[in-house]
C-alpha cells in the first residue's frame, strides 16, 4: 500500500523505526487498536499526531502492558473478512432503515398508482363532488427535475410543485438520499441490479462494473439538454424523468397487462371447471383485485407496448451494468447530483487503511468510487451506506461536515460535450416544430383533456407522467404516439372510440402535477353560468350513418349526448327504403316508406366529449366522430365566426 503523503511528512525522526514496525511487526496495525470510530482520517490536516500512534504501538510490541492488552488484535466477527471489525452500529442500523424506507416509499408509490382512479363510495351522498381521496401525484410534486423544467419553461412554479424545493433542500443536506432511499424507480433498479447479475456479475466483474465509468456522464448531458429544451418551450424531459416513467410504465403497462393476464386465466379456468366453488373463489378474487389494484373493466392504452418494452429493456440492462438507469441515464439523479455538492453529510476516507478488498465496490449502488486510493464521487453517490457497512477495515466514514480532501463534489463533465448537449436540447424544439405538427397541419385527432391549456403552453407543462390517462374513468385518455409530432410523444390525447370524456368528471386536472390540465371545477366544465369547456366538435359521416343512408333507426348518439339542451338534434323524416326481397316475377324489390330520425350536430352546443363516437354502432369506423376543432383552449382552431378572436393571444 502506498503510504499517505501526510504520514510521510510527519515521521521525521522516527522514519526508520516506523518503517521497521510496518514491515516486521504486522500486528497490531494502528487502526486495530480498539479505538474504533475515533481514528482520524489520515488525509485530514490534523494527522500530524501520527507519532502518538507510533508510541502507542511501541509498548504493545515490546511488553504486555495494559495498553498492549487493550490493543490486542481481536477478530470480532470470524465471518467477516479482514479485521472483522463490524461497521458502526449506527450505520448498520441506518442501512436497515434505508431498506425499510425503500420498501415503504415503493409501496406507497404503487398504492398511489393503484388509487389513481375513481372507485366511488357507498358513504358519499349524491351531491358530493367526485374527487380522489389521496394526493396520488405526490411523488411528481416533489420531483425537483419536473419543478426545474416547468420553472424554466413557464417561469412559474405550479401549486404543489413547491414541494420539490423541499426535496432539493434535503439533497443539499444529505446528498442524493432521494435516489438511494426514496425513488421508487431507483428501488426497482436496486432490486433488479441485485437479482439479475447474481450469477454472471459476481466477484471481479461486479467490482469492475461498480467502479466509476465515464459513461456515467451521459445523464448530465441528457439533463442539460432537457433543461435547455424546457427553456425553449417544451417539458420533453418528462419522457426521461424516473417518476414519470414509473407512473407511465406501471400505470399504463404493468397494471393493465396483469389484469389482462389474470382475467384471461380466470376465464380459462371458468370455462373448463364448472364447479360453483371454483367460480365463486374466482369471482371474489376478481372483485377484490378490481377494487384494489385495477378497475372493474379492462383498460387499454394506445401503443403502450413501447412504454412497456422500454421498461423491460432498462430493467434488463441491470444485468450488464448494475443500476444502469440510475447511473447512466437518469436526469433527475443528475439534477440532484449537481446539488449534492452542497451536502453537509458525506464520506470521509482513510486511504491508508484500505487493503483493496473491494467489498465496498461489490455493494456500491452509485458507482461513486468508495474504495481507497481514489477520490469519492459525491455527485454519484446514492447515500445507501452499503460501503461503510461492507468495509472490514474502517476506511469509510459517513459523517456531517466531512473533510473534502478525498472527495470530488462536482460532476465530472467535459465542458464541450455538456455545451453541445445543451445546444442539442435547445435546437430540438425548433426542429420538432418546423416538422409541421403544431403551427400548421395540426392533427385533427390531437384532442386534449378538458381544462388543458393552449397547445404551446401545454407543451411547456406536460411532463408525460400519464397520471391523467391512469385516472380517466372511461379509458379515454391515451399516450400519443406521433399524432402530436415527435415533441408530443406520450402526451395525453382523447381517443373517443375507446372511451369518451365523462361529462361531469374533472379528475384529470386534479391529478395533473404541472397545470398542463388546469384544476377546473364541475361548474366550469359543464358551463353553469358560463360557456362550457369544449375539447372538440362532432361530425357526421352520412355515408355510414344508419338513419342517414341505410333507412334504419338508431340515434344512440343523441341518447348519449350529455349536454342540455342536446348538441345532437334529430330531424324527423319519412324516407324511401328498398325492400330486402325481390318482387314477384323477378321484379325489382318494392319501395316502402320508413319513419326515421336523422341526427345533426349543433356546433355551438357540442363540447366534443366523444360520447357519440364511442357509442356509434358502426363498429370499425364510426359514423360520428370528433376532431379537435372548436376546442375552448385555442383561439385559432375554431369553426364558428363567433368564437374567432384575433385580439386574443393564440
Amino acid at each position, binding site marked *: 500500500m502506498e503510504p499517505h503523503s501526510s504520514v510521510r511528512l510527519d515521521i521525521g525522526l522516527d522514519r526508520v523505526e516506523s518503517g521497521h514496525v510496518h514491515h516486521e511487526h504486522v500486528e497490531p496495525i494502528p487502526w486495530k487498536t480498539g479505538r474504533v470510530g475515533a481514528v482520524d482520517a489520515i488525509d485530514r490536516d490534523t494527522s500530524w499526531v501520527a507519532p502518538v500512534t507510533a508510541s502507542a504501538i511501541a509498548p504493545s510490541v515490546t511488553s504486555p502492558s495494559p495498553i498492549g492488552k487493550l490493543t490486542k488484535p481481536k477478530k470480532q466477527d470470524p465471518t467477516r473478512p479482514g479485521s472483522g471489525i463490524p461497521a458502526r452500529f449506527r450505520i448498520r442500523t441506518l442501512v436497515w432503515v434505508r431498506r425499510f424506507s425503500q420498501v415503504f416509499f415503493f409501496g406507497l408509490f404503487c398504492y398511489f398508482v393503484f388509487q389513481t382512479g*375513481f*372507485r*366511488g*363510495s*357507498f*358513504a*358519499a*351522498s*349524491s*351531491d*358530493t363532488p*367526485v374527487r380522489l381521496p389521496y394526493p396520488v401525484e405526490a411523488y411528481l410534486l416533489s420531483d425537483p427535475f419536473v419543478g426545474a423544467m416547468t420553472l424554466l419553461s413557464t417561469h412559474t412554479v405550479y401549486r404543489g410543485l413547491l414541494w420539490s424545493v423541499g426535496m432539493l433542500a434535503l439533497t443539499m443536506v444529505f446528498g442524493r438520499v432521494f435516489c438511494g432511499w426514496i425513488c421508487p424507480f431507483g428501488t426497482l433498479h436496486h432490486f433488479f441490479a441485485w437479482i439479475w447479475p447474481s450469477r454472471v456479475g459476481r466477484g471481479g466483474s461486479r467490482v469492475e462494473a461498480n467502479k466509476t465509468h465515464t459513461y456515467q456522464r451521459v445523464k448530465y448531458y441528457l439533463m442539460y439538454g432537457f433543461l435547455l429544451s424546457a427553456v425553449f418551450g417544451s417539458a420533453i424531459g418528462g419522457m426521461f424523468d424516473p417518476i414519470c416513467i414509473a407512473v407511465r410504465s406501471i400505470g399504463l403497462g404493468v397494471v393493465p397487462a396483469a389484469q389482462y393476464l389474470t*382475467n384471461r386465466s*380466470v*376465464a380459462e379456468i371458468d370455462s373448463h371447471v364448472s364447479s360453483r366453488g371454483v367460480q365463486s373463489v*374466482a*369471482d371474489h378474487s*376478481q*372483485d377484490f383485485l*378490481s377494487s384494489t389494484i385495477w378497475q*372493474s*373493466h*379492462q383498460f387499454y392504452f394506445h401503443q403502450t407496448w413501447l412504454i412497456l418494452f422500454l421498461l423491460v429493456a432498462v430493467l434488463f440492462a441491470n444485468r450488464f451494468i448494475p443500476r444502469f438507469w440510475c447511473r447512466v441515464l437518469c436526469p433527475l439523479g443528475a439534477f440532484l447530483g449537481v446539488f449534492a455538492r452542497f451536502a453537509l453529510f458525506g464520506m470521509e476516507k482513510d486511504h491508508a487503511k484500505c487493503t483493496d478488498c473491494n467489498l465496498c465496490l461489490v455493494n456500491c449502488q452509485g458507482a461513486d468510487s468508495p474504495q481507497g486510493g481514489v477520490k469519492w464521487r459525491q455527485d454519484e453517490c446514492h447515500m445507501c451506506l452499503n460501503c461503510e457497512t461492507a468495509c472490514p477495515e474502517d476506511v469509510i466514514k459517513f459523517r456531517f461536515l466531512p473533510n473534502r480532501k478525498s472527495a470530488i463534489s462536482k460532476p465530472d463533465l467535459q465542458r464541450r460535450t455538456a455545451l453541445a448537449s445543451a445546444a442539442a436540447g435547445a435546437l430540438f424544439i425548433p426542429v420538432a416544430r418546423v416538422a409541421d405538427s403544431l403551427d400548421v397541419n395540426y392533427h385533427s385527432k390531437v384532442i386534449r383533456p378538458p381544462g388543458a391549456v393552449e397547445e404551446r403552453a401545454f407543451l411547456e407543462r406536460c411532463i408525460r407522467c400519464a397520471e391523467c390517462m391512469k385516472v380517466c*374513468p*372511461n379509458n379515454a385518455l391515451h399516450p400519443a404516439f406521433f399524432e402530436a409530432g415527435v415533441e408530443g410523444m406520450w402526451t395525453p390525447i382523447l381517443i373517443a372510440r375507446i372511451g369518451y370524456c*365523462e*361529462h*361531469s*368528471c374533472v379528475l384529470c386536472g386534479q391529478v395533473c402535477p404541472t397545470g398542463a390540465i388546469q384544476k377546473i371545477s364541475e361548474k366550469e366544465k359543464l358551463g353553469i353560468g358560463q360557456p362550457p369547456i369544449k375539447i372538440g366538435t362532432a361530425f357526421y359521416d352520412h355515408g355510414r350513418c*344508419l338513419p342517414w343512408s341505410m333507412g*334504419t*333507426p*338508431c*340515434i*344512440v348518439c*343523441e*341518447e*348519449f*349526448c*350529455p*349536454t*342540455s*339542451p*342536446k348538441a345532437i338534434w*334529430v330531424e324527423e323524416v319519412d324516407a324511401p327504403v328498398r325492400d330486402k326481397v325481390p318482387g314477384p316475377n323477378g321484379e325489382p324489390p318494392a319501395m316502402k316508406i320508413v319513419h326515421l*330520425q336523422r341526427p345533426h350536430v349543433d356546433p355551438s352546443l357540442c363540447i366534443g366529449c366523444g360520447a357519440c363516437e364511442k*357509442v*356509434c*354502432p358502426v*363498429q370499425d369506423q364510426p359514423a360520428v366522430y370528433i376532431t379537435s376543432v372548436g376546442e375552448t383552449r385555442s383561439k385559432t382552431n375554431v369553426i364558428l365566426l363567433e368564437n374567432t378572436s384575433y385580439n386574443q393571444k393564440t
Partner: protein
Amino acid sequence: MLAGAALVARSAWDKGGLGVATGQGARQVRDYRLADSTKDLANAELAIARGVRDGDGKAPSAEELVTRALAAMGTMSAFVSQGDVVVVKPNIGWDRMPIHAANTNPDVVGAVVKLALAAGAKKVVVADGSCNDPNRCFQRSGIWKSAYDNGAEVVLPAEHHYRTMRLQGDVLDEWPVFTTLVNADKVINVPVAKHHNLAKFTAAMKNWYGVLGGRRNRLHQNIDTSIADLATFMRPTLTIIDATRVLMRNGPQGGNIDDTRELLTVVASVDQVAADAYACTLIGQHRDNLPYLKTAHDRGIGTMYWENLRTKEV
C-alpha cells in the same frame, strides 16, 4: 397405446371450415314470478300510490308511497319469503343526480330494500349495468348510499360478472348477461318512468337493458323488438315504477331540471307490461304509440290493457 393415440388425435383434430355452431341449446328464460300471485283476490295486481304536497308543501316520503302501493297488493311479504336472495334492479344508467330524474329515485330503492329485508329476505342485492362510468353513476345517483344504508349489498358491473346466455329472441340471440342480476330467488324491478327519444316512453321493460353486457348500442336499430325480447327473458317477481319525479322530455338522459316534473307517484304491479302501459299515461303517452307493448302483449308476457287487472289507486 395406438388406440389411445388415435383417440387423442381424434379429439384434437381440427377439420377446418367456417361453420361455427351458435345458439345451440334451449332458450334460457329467467322467471321469478310467483306461481300463485293471483290467488288472493283481495290483493290488487296493479297498485298506484299517489301523493300530493300538503298545505306546508311537504311531500309524502318515497317510503310511504312504496308502502302504500305494496299494501294494496298484500304487502312485501306476499312476494318475498324468509331466506330469499332478492335482487333489486333500479335504473342506474346515467351520471345524473336524483333531481334530474334520469335514474330511479334513491329513496324509492332504499324503501324497497328495507321492505324486502323486513319481509325476511336473507340478502338484498342492488345492481345495474350503467351506461356512464358505473362508479360515478352509483355514487351520484345516490342509490349506492341509500341501498347500503338500508342494508343491501351493492354490486357494480365488472367484466367478470358477465356470462353469455341464450336469449333466443327475435333479435337478441346470445348476449352476455350480468349474472348478479339473475342469480336470485326473487327479482324486483324498480325502474324510473321517463321519456325516451327513440322509444317515446320507457320504464319497466326497457330497464332490462341493464342486464345485458356487450355492445348494447346495436339494440336501438330495432328497439321495440329488443325490449320485448328482454322482457321475455326476464320475468320479475314484482315491478315497482318510480314516478316521484319524471323526465318529461330529452330522455333518457335528461340533465335539465326544467325537463322534469314532480308527480309523487309509485306504480306497483305483478305484470310488467301493464305497469308500463299504465305509467306511460303519466307523461301523456298512450299504449298504442308504444309498439313494444303490443309485441309483449301479443307474446303473452302480460297485458297492455291494464284496466283488465285488479287495480287499486291509493
